């Protein structure tokens, strides 16, 4: 059996849930995975033990204080055995995996959503088509979240490697997001509004539901282009962010191809639109034909009583 290296996804100082899914991806490739945990405190790696994983390496280095692609790739590469590199398809991990692959002179396949033997499938043209490639040698791959089942947790057998890299960038300041709410790229549930919301002030109705569900608030390109108060960072779609949450709720969004490209791979899609013929409905698991003014209060109270 060949070897693989899983680069653990670490959020807020803990190993993120997607890491367990990467273990399943490694096993689907027929490889034996070693989990590598980039950290400044090796105890983080205690959370990186899984069924099917024999070895966990905490790569402990000062360079992991802030994200710096060059030093992260150098330190992770130095601490990792040979084999197929597997990372989560988050913006940061795709970036670091690309550098690790380049360091090793191997290729990279991003955004994998299916594995069969050495054949990997990823969306291309923003999900308007799928592409399957075959690997004939070591490569790096990134795997989308919510695709593979999570491997069961197990006690981690952690070895610590002190390894830092030369930091090439200097962080001048970190600007916290104004709201405590999640970014669409980090959220498992997203509720998005389109131009059908009528005004940016009306997004407060989406925020209320988002707060109930612990969701992020997104927007269509039409909304971002129309209202200055809706920042591009909220935009879901081809020139915004590509997301695949467990649940995507589209409110007052007609379903332009631009928008569909960014959210069509969401596990469940709910659409609220007053136009029964809106294209979004042909992509929705559950469609509600109603105005948002009528539907959102009902949604909110139903979600609230369920979460209570």
């Amino acid at each position, binding site marked *: 059996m060949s070897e693989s290296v899983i680069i653990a996804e670490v959020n807020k100082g803990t190993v993120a849930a997607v890491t367990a899914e990467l273990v399943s991806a490694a096993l689907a490739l027929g490889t034996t995975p070693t989990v590598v945990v980039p950290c400044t405190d090796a105890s983080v790696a205690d959370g990186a033990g899984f069924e099917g994983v024999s070895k966990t390496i905490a790569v402990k280095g000062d360079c992991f204080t802030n994200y710096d692609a*060059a030093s992260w790739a150098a330190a992770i590469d130095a601490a990792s055995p040979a084999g197929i590199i597997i990372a989560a398809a988050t913006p940061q991990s795709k970036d670091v995996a690309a550098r690790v692959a380049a360091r090793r002179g191997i290729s990279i396949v991003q955004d994998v959503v299916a594995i069969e033997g050495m054949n990997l499938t990823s969306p291309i043209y923003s999900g308007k088509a799928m592409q399957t490639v075959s690997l004939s040698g070591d490569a790096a791959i990134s795997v989308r979240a919510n695709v593979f089942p999570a491997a069961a947790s197990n006690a981690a057998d952690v070895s610590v490697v002190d390894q830092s890299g030369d930091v090439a960038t200097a962080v001048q300041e970190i600007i916290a997001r104004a709201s405590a709410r999640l970014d669409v790229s980090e959220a498992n549930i997203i509720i998005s509004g389109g131009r059908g919301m009528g005004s940016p002030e009306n997004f407060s109705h989406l925020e209320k539901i988002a707060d109930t569900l612990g969701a992020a608030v997104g927007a269509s390109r039409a909304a971002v282009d129309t209202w200055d108060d809706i920042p591009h960072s909220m935009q879901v779609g081809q020139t915004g962010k590509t997301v695949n949450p467990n649940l995507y709720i589209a409110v007052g969004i007609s379903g332009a191809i631009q928008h569909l490209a960014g959210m069509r791979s969401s596990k469940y899609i709910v659409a609220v639109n007053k136009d029964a013929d809106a294209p979004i*409905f042909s992509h929705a698991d559950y469609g509600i034909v109603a105005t948002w003014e009528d539907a959102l209060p009902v949604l909110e109270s139903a979600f609230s009583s369920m979460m209570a």
Partner: protein
Amino acid sequence: MPNIVVLVKRVPDTNARIVVNGDRVDLSAVKWVISPYDEFAIETALQHKEAAGGTVTALTLGPPDADKVLKDAKAIGVDEIVRVWDDSWAELDSNGIQSALAQAVTGLGADVVYCGKTAADTGAGSTGPGVAERLGWASVSNTTDASFDGGITVSTPVEGGSARVSVSGSVVISCDKGSMKVRKPNVKGIMMAKRAQVNVVSADAPSSTVAIVSQTPPPAKPAGKKFEGASSAEEVVRLLRDEANII
């Protein structure tokens, strides 16, 4: 003064319908354009030149068909246009593409490289960081709001917000949109672009270890359930819990 290179890629217009014929996408009828994020890279490169002087060279990898996006970049305002190609290349994988681009960047004597955060065809985002690694350079990805006071300072998303990050040495910057408005070509630019010569250079590329097996239409989604009226929202929430098990 900085020697600035901007990487551009020829991709199908993002509004194009993607048709699959047999086991490959059929792009014979699509309109080809500069990948949208590469336009933000061109804009950032031109702003860098306006602030610090120097030259901006647009670089692409591809057969002669790719000259069009170089001429489009020239019309927007880049100084030089260069294409790297070897007729022996068929389907290069990321390793081959990044190696060839890194050689071309070195050949041009660049100090800084801009590119789009992803290309609109693959959406991968590997080229910027991958080329940087091969050059031994720093890289910052998904950047917005570049400023040029001494070095280069950009904003990049981090957990819980964004960071202002500065770089003093050689760097590859992969650009996002942010609040940027890109300049459009003017008549003079278009006329100049028509006469502009594409400088074609060659490079070595390692053989590919990733081969395309098939390209297929996206899986069709089973028809969903559609309800009339706001009161059905209650039923939908129940289904999300009991049928989808998602809440």
